[in-house]
């Protein structure tokens, strides 16, 4: 497993200018009547990539996936797969397979027949079909369920059958529409890692649609964050979290404290004036210039919470401990500032008990280092 991890770390074709994109969306727009589901969107996905489309419901992510599957036609724009324009190619002739959110297992067929369906359709010889089905059943660990009907299986087993069926034809690209949505949390977490291993072993390109940021971050090489039919940022999970491109991304992925302010001094030791008048020292103001309105996004775990004002840190705010959420692995403090704003600060509970911990309605200081936050201009 160690070697697997290190191999995957070096996988970054998007950083290589000579790498050829495998799937390309070029200015794709999709309208349903007055509603624009996908708005002039361009996107590239590389071969063997595990790519996630992340966004709230109605953001256009499923429509994008369905256009790649051939179930919707773009109103304008083009989609290429391995250099081939997909325009006019019906779903049954596309070298992609889809795993449906509802699984869409054929209720009148056994597990075996479901998995064999696509192979039979291709006219594969019987012996080869049997072999491939056995192989698929083994892959998803359902050998002893081959002759069951879908309604005799649990949710997790159905999910596996759906996966096996969509992988049986060895598609160039596997599209997964909220594949784990119907599973309970524990099963979902297990399955996430299984999917990643499977994708790596088979060497396929996976595109997954999800509204669950944790799921996207656990599995994907890169994540595209979508809102109102547009892609806001395409980046690795770490980049999305630590260097969000805009306020929407920062707020959508994880929790964040957003300080609105004006740039006083730009550059590598920039100064911002907060709405309340407090001044922050920031390591990088990005492309903002003095006088601009910007937002400083600081993640709760990058804030320190103390009783006394720490002498060595410039950026500190005083407030009252308003709420404490004990989550086991960490504790989140909601600190209410003098102007009524709530700031979230979290601490890792690396010890089983802390003597003299902060408690409700105590005065406290939250502080952060100059490089703790990101300056956002939109």
């Amino acid at each position, binding site marked *: 497993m160690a070697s697997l991890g290190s191999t995957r770390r070096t996988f970054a074709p998007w950083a290589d200018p000579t790498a050829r994109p495998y799937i390309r969306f070029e200015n794709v727009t999709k309208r349903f009547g007055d509603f624009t589901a996908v708005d002039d969107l361009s996107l590239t996905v590389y071969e063997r990539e595990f790519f996630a489309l992340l966004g709230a419901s109605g953001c256009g992510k499923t429509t994008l996936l369905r256009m790649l599957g051939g179930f919707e036609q773009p109103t304008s724009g083009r989609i290429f797969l391995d250099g081939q324009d997909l325009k006019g190619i019906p779903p*049954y002739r596309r070298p992609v397979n889809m795993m449906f959110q509802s699984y869409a297992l*054929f209720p009148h067929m056994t597990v075996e027949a479901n998995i064999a*369906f696509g192979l039979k*359709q291709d006219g594969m010889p019987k012996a080869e079909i049997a072999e491939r089905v056995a192989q698929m059943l083994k892959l998803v660990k359902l050998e002893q369920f081959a002759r069951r009907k879908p*309604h005799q299986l649990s949710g997790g087993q159905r999910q596996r059958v759906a996966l096996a069926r969509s992988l049986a034809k060895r598609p160039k690209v596997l599209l997964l529409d909220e594949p784990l949505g119907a599973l309970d949390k524990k099963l979902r977490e297990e399955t996430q890692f299984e999917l990643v291993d499977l994708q790596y072993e088979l060497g396929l390109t996976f595109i997954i649609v999800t509204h669950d940021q944790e799921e996207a971050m656990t599995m994907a090489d890169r994540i595209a964050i979508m809102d109102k039919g547009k892609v806001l940022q395409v980046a690795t999970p770490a980049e999305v979290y630590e260097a969000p491109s805009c306020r929407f991304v920062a707020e959508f992925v994880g929790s964040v404290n957003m300080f609105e302010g004006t740039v006083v001094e730009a550059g590598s030791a920039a100064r911002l004036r907060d709405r309340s008048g407090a001044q922050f020292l920031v390591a990088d103001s990005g492309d903002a210039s003095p006088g601009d309105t910007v937002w400083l996004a600081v993640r709760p775990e990058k804030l320190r919470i103390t009783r006394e004002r720490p002498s060595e840190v410039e950026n500190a705010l005083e407030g009252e401990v308003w709420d404490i959420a004990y989550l086991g692995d960490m504790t989140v403090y909601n600190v209410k500032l003098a102007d009524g704003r709530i700031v979230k600060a979290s601490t890792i509970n690396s010890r089983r008990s802390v003597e003299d911990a902060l408690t409700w309605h105590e005065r406290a200081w939250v502080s952060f280092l100059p490089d703790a936050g990101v300056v956002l201009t939109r």
Partner: protein
Amino acid sequence: MRRLLSSIGSRLVIAVPYLWLLFFFLVPFFIVFKISLSQPTIAMPPYQPVFGLEDGLSGLFGKLRQLSFDNYLWLLQDALYVNAYVSSVVIAAVSTLLTLLVGYPIAYGMARAPERLRPLLLMMVILPFWTSFLIRVYAWIGILKPEGLLNQFLLFLGVIDEPLIILNTTKAVYIGIVYSYLPFMVLPLYATLEKMDHSLIEAAQDLGCPPLAAFWKITFPLSFPGVVAGCMLVFIPAVGEFVIPDLLGGSRTLMIGRTLWNEFFSNRDWPVSSAVAIVLLLILVLPIVYFQRAQARAREREG
């Protein structure tokens, strides 16, 4: 005490349909069955023996001994009845198939229509019920007769040179049955097709299945319970149909409903007509049992 009362109460609730069946199906059935074992006579009622309370036990046994299965033997021996049964079943089966062929596309179209249109389409299927069945069948006479609307229209178009003879043939009976029973075919089909998950078709296409193949491999098998229900709802009443063959069919259209009517009203032979009815019931029990079993299987499959 309260538990006792509620248990009596729940038994009463179950008893209602059973009592209904007892009084309105089983008792009349046995009366008809008893008449079918009697002999015709010119009297009021026109058969004997007639049981009465004044007979006493010995009189009852004496009368029971007069009952016989002669009428059933008579039915078997006379080719008229056998032919009428066979031709009724054939006409009903052919019309059921025709109704399925016409009804399936209608139900499919309704199920795939935009959701806001569906109640309207459903309404249009049910709408003919608002007019009397008899009047609607009479209307077909006006359409099908040699100088009727259909022939005039076809002559006007120049498709035909002389009027088609449709009325008073078996063709008219087929048309009448298909028209009259279409809603009974469309409604159960629509019910199964409408609740079908469209993503199943998409999944089939995704796996390389062109639309027509997807229909035969996914849609049709999954709608089979609806096909069976619709066919039974058409076939069972069509076998015993009387009004349609009487009004639209010719003298050569032999159907058991008409035979029954003749025996009962023209010949005043109540025992034979009762025997005809009992045999008809037995013939229909077979498909009904099959229908019940198919439904049970479908329920099992749905889990």
